[in-house]
């Protein structure tokens, strides 16, 4: 339980990480890039794959993220940097969290429930944060097949309703659509940044960098296919379908007789998504704990503190979700490429200081 295995890491990259891109992002990309939504997404996947390759190469050094920073910049600077990084993770946690909240309110209930409906998530987050990060490898063993089952099920039910000619003509959105789509999608692509705190919790094995990158691209290919199906079904009204993975399969012909059997797959994906939404919180806590020590009870205390903070934020932003989304994917979007692309690259390029004896 103390280490994440190679297989678990590949499961995470191939199956768990793509799940975070199935909810709001397709509609957002359809809004910005129309039928060309695949290209910004493809570019993002390629950029992230490059960053993930860098992070996995960093794993060769056999050090944790904090040790890596300490070794490069010294202890004090490392403490400062890891705190900044933890703050970034907390910022990055906001979008999946609000996404999850909106998903719960719009998909799981016919009538808008009180905040009570979503508040149990924070109890879950407390529990999650209290667990060591490395124990999550085992969770991914369960979540990966569940995610694959969910996505495959939805694709099977919805592919028959898709008209892929909706994606033509290629390039209709022009450079502006492509650029805007790419920029706003940055907020959803934090995979490399989420991989950094896992350094030191898995052992580098020969070929891991390539395998990891390919696994991620494999998961990305499935997501792109899903986007194509999504746009093939909804065309111009795609931007209005907020939660893509819950919308595409409802036109399956069997729904009228069998009921919404697609909910089985939606529930499976939602389960995976609840872990995905809490992961940045947990990693932020882990970064802090690694830098400043891990006395007994502190992980739980930190979990309670962070969850309470995000509970308050979710209450405050309850009816300002669109504004919050616009800020995160607009004015503040530059933060994501800095931490998700530049930091891994810079860490790889910086020279190691000689270890002190």
């Amino acid at each position, binding site marked *: 339980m103390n280490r994440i295995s190679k297989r678990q890491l590949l499961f995470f990259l191939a199956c768990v990480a793509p799940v975070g891109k199935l909810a709001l992002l397709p509609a957002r990309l359809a809004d910005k890039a129309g039928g060309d939504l695949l290209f910004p997404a493809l570019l993002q996947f390629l950029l992230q794959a490059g960053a993930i390759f860098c992070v996995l190469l960093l794993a060769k050094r056999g050090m944790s993220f904090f040790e890596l920073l300490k070794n490069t910049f010294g202890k004090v600077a490392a403490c400062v940097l890891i705190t900044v990084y933890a703050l970034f993770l907390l910022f990055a946690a906001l979008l999946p969290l609000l996404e999850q909240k909106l998903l719960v309110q719009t998909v*799981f209930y016919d009538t808008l429930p009180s905040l009570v409906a979503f508040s149990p998530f924070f109890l879950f987050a407390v529990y999650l944060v209290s667990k060591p990060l490395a124990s999550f490898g085992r969770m991914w063993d369960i979540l990966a097949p569940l995610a694959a089952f969910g996505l495959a099920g939805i694709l099977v039910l919805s592919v028959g309703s898709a008209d892929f000619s909706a994606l033509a003509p290629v390039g209709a959105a022009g450079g502006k659509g492509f650029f805007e789509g790419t920029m706003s999608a940055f907020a959803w692509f934090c995979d490399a940044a989420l991989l950094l705190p896992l350094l030191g919790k898995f052992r580098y094995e020969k070929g891991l960098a390539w395998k990891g990158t390919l696994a991620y691209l494999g998961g990305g290919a499935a997501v792109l296919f899903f986007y194509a199906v999504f746009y093939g079904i909804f065309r111009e009204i795609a931007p209005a379908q907020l939660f893509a993975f819950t919308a595409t399969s409802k036109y399956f012909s069997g729904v009228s007789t069998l009921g919404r059997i697609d909910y089985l797959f939606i*529930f499976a994906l939602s389960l995976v998504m609840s872990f995905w939404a809490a992961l940045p919180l947990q990693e932020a806590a882990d970064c802090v704990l690694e830098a400043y020590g891990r006395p007994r009870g502190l992980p739980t205390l930190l979990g309670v503190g962070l969850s309470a903070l995000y509970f308050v934020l979710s209450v405050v932003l309850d009816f300002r979700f669109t504004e919050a989304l616009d800020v995160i994917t607009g004015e503040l979007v530059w933060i994501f490429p800095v931490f998700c692309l530049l930091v891994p690259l810079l860490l790889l390029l910086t020279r190691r200081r000689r270890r002190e004896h």
Partner: protein
Amino acid sequence: MKTVSGDLEKTKDALKKLLPADDILSFDFRSGSGMRFCVLFADPITDKDLLGEQVIRALKSYAGAPKAEEVSAALTSPETKTEKSLDALAREVLIGNPVLLFSGMDGAVIVGTKKIFPRAVTEPPTDVALKGPREGFIEDFKVNTSLVRRRLKTGELRMETTEVGRRSNTVVVVCYLAGTARQEVVEEVKQKLKDIDIDVIPDSSYLTHFLSSRPYSLVKQVGTTEKPDIFCAKLAEGRVGLIVDGSPIALTVPYLLVEDFQSSEDYFVPSYRATFTRLLRLLALIVAIYLPAFYVAAQLFRLQLFPIKLLLTIAGSIRDIPFSPSLEMLLVLLVLEVLNEASIRMPKYVGMALSVVGALVLGETAVSAGFVSTPAIIMIAFSGIGLYAVPNLIEQTSVVRLVMLLVAGSVGTYGIILATAFMLLYLVTTENFQTPLLAPFSPVVGKDLRDSLIKYNLGSLKTRPKTLHSPNKRRLA
């Protein structure tokens, strides 16, 4: 530590002081040479016929020296030992083994003539098999160990006996195959048994608490079986078994959750059939846990989950029900649990009547009186049947079902999803005897999946489960 003295009367008195109960008797006699003997025994649990035959008759003609070794050799009992400590002698008397004292002794002789009241070896009620062996463990540990020994005729089978419980001195036999079981696990089991400080161990279930890494957990962490064939199969896989005197249920560690989805019969039927039934058991368990919860959540929060025709039927049935869906479901579930509890404890003929009362009077009239709806009864009945598809997990799953129902009634479907996430996280982080509970699914152990929820042919199961880290890996040549 007080020990026996050469004075017979003094030793007898000292033992009588330690054992003042009325059912502790003594019998004095002399051998042909005039040497004085005394047998001290617990009347209800000593086989007096055997005592007369193997001890008193044998010593009538004794003319040897008053040495424990020589006296012991003169007895016709195959089970004797000598002991000097008075405490140890008293303990043996209480177990049922008489103590032989004699004048001028250097130590007393303990004779193994305990009276055994074993019931017949029958098919266990909790683990019935259509195919395969039908023998089950009984309460006597000697019979149980003999059932195991009969199946594993190898010198590698080790049975180490220890006593647990300050007052009950319950015999616990630690069984394992040397060279196959992981030595660390054997040592950990022995250490945990040694650390137990409790006065009475009435049943093996008491030990599970002490053997679990999370003793207050809802999750089972020790395997149980009533069948010697399953017990032996588990030992052969590299597990360590515990047979407890007075209990027909043997324990095995390390335990994997998947064990309870397997039945002994799976190994006596074609593998496709075994795979099908295992998957069916899993499905039944999922239905048992989630069906009532989703029914309530769908009614309260998300009607789209029902097909339209079913929705209309349900709407018609629940129209005049005075309770909320969750309360209605809770009531029906409570009635089911009460009926279940009562029917298990009642004599069989009353149990039949109870079933009629439960099914017809309560069920039928409650529906026609409009207290509960027919769909609610169907859901609970379905869930109840599903629960019994995996009988070893009934205690745990019935609680989980209730929790899910409460969560569904208050938070709806998302609550069920989160409760499932909680449960999964808890399960994947649970380990006992350095073995993850959810293996071979989490962590995935590829080869072990061949005998998990799916079952390969026997020819494909060449190695022992990797999860158990047996030093002897190969099972099939």
